[in-house]
């Protein structure tokens, strides 16, 4: 029996793949590019505030004193949830945070500057919501995650020479062939990662939709009951409202959870008789975000949330965050996520490029696409410049720059020229950003993580200038770059 699918199967699958890709290609590009950069959101947050003190060893008594002082001194509004973020490898800082604002805490226990990272928020909001209202934006982005899975499935189904082309990588020559090779190599070998990103991405937006639907259908609209079955029950306490004994709770952690690393503490229902402490502690070699240890306000241990040893469904759900963002296993996991994220971004672009190349003619769509693709990095860099120059960042600013880039590309009516011009503008803007940043932060710009990020930005700008300005002796190299 011949098990090989017919040509009709491949062509119909390719048709489905193409149309689906075309419908979401532009949004997919924005989500993937911002997601690739957002792998390093902790590093970008540190880069935005380089003068905040960084340390790994902290004195919990000093944090406890600062936290209780914050609650009692009346200078800030005490919100139902109050947070203490603890140093991690990605973000070695301590901060006290309310639902509205936050402050870094120095190692000596003194409160330092406010936490503020508006540019990183612009980046992460683009990835999470596409700058739309949060609920709808997240559903749309999650739908794009599910569509990414459809694209992976239909992509495999439409690839009639999957094994024959396994390592083919032809550049120059036919544009369609070049873009097809780039598209297929990156998507086929990266498929497990792309499927995981699609699935976990779909989870974030639809988890609450499923909870609401499930509660409506099976639990008589008792959303709290359903939420608690996943995220654990909250204790019902009736205590005298006094100080929060964070130190006592933390000092029990080595016995309660040896070899784990506390990363966060939340005080729930702050200032009420029911207030309690929840300490999030990361377990080694586990993908769950943390196991959560619940204490009363006096620091007496009550129970865990059973994320590490509870039902399998609970463990899987609580592993989604780290799996999606690559925040596990150390710096090289982030590098792999960045590279594979960049691969999906290129796949999104090359997919549309294939369609454009197949058309055999050029028009406004070519120009718009060139402006959109090469304008997005500019639209991300410009708000960073205004953030450090005038402390001004707005999501509208991003979209304004993007529209301007598209308009410029349309005016040029030459996608090749548009790519070159926009890359040069990006390089120039990046250099401006580095100058502005260095002028603002001086010494801090040239040490530690800011130096690494500024160095990478400078390298990117120079590569951009190099590839668009140099006259290559070899025409082959010139065309390839």
């Amino acid at each position: 029996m011949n098990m090989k699918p017919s040509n009709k199967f491949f062509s119909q699958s390719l048709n489905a793949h193409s149309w689906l890709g075309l419908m979401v290609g532009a949004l997919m590009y924005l989500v993937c590019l911002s997601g690739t950069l957002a792998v390093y959101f902790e590093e970008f947050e540190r880069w935005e505030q380089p003068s905040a003190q960084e340390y790994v060893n902290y004195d919990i008594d000093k944090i406890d004193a600062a936290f209780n002082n914050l609650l009692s001194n009346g200078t800030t509004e005490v919100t139902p949830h109050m947070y203490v973020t603890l140093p991690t490898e990605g973000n070695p800082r301590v901060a006290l945070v309310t639902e509205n604002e936050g402050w870094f805490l120095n190692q000596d226990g003194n409160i330092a500057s406010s936490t503020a990272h508006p540019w990183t928020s612009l980046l992460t909001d683009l990835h999470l919501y596409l700058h739309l209202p949060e609920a709808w934006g997240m559903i749309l982005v999650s739908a794009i995650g599910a569509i990414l899975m459809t694209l992976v499935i239909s992509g495999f189904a439409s690839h009639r020479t999957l094994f024959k082309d396994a390592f083919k990588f032809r550049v120059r020559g036919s544009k369609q062939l070049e873009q097809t090779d780039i598209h297929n190599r990156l998507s086929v070998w990266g498929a497990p990662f792309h499927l995981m990103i699609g699935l976990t991405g779909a989870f974030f937006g639809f988890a609450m939709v499923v909870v609401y639907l499930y509660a409506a259908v099976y639990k008589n609209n008792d959303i709290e009951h359903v939420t608690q079955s996943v995220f654990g029950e909250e204790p019902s306490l009736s205590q005298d409202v006094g100080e929060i004994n964070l130190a006592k709770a933390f000092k029990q952690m080595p016995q309660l959870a040896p070899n784990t690393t506390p990363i966060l503490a939340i005080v729930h229902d702050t200032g009420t008789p029911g207030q309690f402490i929840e300490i999030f502690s990361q377990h080694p070699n586990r993908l769950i975000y943390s196991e959560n240890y619940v204490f009363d306000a006096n620091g007496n241990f009550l129970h865990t949330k059973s994320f590490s040893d509870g039902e399998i469904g609970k463990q899987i759900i609580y592993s989604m965050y780290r799996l999606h963002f690559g925040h596990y296993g150390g710096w090289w996991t982030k590098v792999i996520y960045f590279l594979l994220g960049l691969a999906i971004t290129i796949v999104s672009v090359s997919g549309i490029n294939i369609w454009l190349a197949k058309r055999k003619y050029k028009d406004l769509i070519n120009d718009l696409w060139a402006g959109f693709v090469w304008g997005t990095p500019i639209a991300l860099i410009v708000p960073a410049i205004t953030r450090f120059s005038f402390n001004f960042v707005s999501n509208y600013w991003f979209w304004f720059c993007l529209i301007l880039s598209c308009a410029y590309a349309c005016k040029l009516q030459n996608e090749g020229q548009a790519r070159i011009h926009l890359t040069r503008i990006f390089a120039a803007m990046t250099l401006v950003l580095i100058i502005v940043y260095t002028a603002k932060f001086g010494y801090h710009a040239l040490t530690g993580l800011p130096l690494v990020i500024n160095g990478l930005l400078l390298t990117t700008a120079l590569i951009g200038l190099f590839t668009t300005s140099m006259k290559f002796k070899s025409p082959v190299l010139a065309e390839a770059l």
Partner: protein
Amino acid sequence: MNILITLLPASFGFSFLYLNWKSADKDTRMSNWVGWTLALSSLALFILFEGVEFGLAYGFFGLAIIPLVLALININIRDKQRKITERRTFRFQPIKNRWSNNVIIFIVAIPIALIFSLLSLLVVSNVTGYSEVNKLTLIVLGFPLLWSVIAYLYLYSQQKKMIGSALFLGAIILSGITFT
């Protein structure tokens, strides 16, 4: 050190697959088995050294970099002039164009496939006998997968109207069953 030991079999395995792919020899079945076995042994080593969760993640995602590097090594820069593509003035033709049909199909089909898969899993989860949290996990992770398969099948099908109607009716029936 562990990481190097773990990466070594996969590097050999993918290199083996690559060299095998490049060779003129047509009978490559045995050699491919060896290549894939070596690559999978790296996955096993990752699991051994890093535990099941980290091991699977490293194995499935990290190892993908190796064949991509091999494809990059195999780069074939062709010294051939590209054709000049004709430039046309853009004209938007919303009704006659196949574009608009596909946009409408996309706007209608994708949400219907979403509702259908969501409700299907809501019903299926109820007959599994799982605990509540496991049911929710099944729905929340299963429905995007089902959604993506249905969306593909729908777009794949030439008889779009028939399958679309079937899905639509199915979604209505399922929602009826679910809400009663």
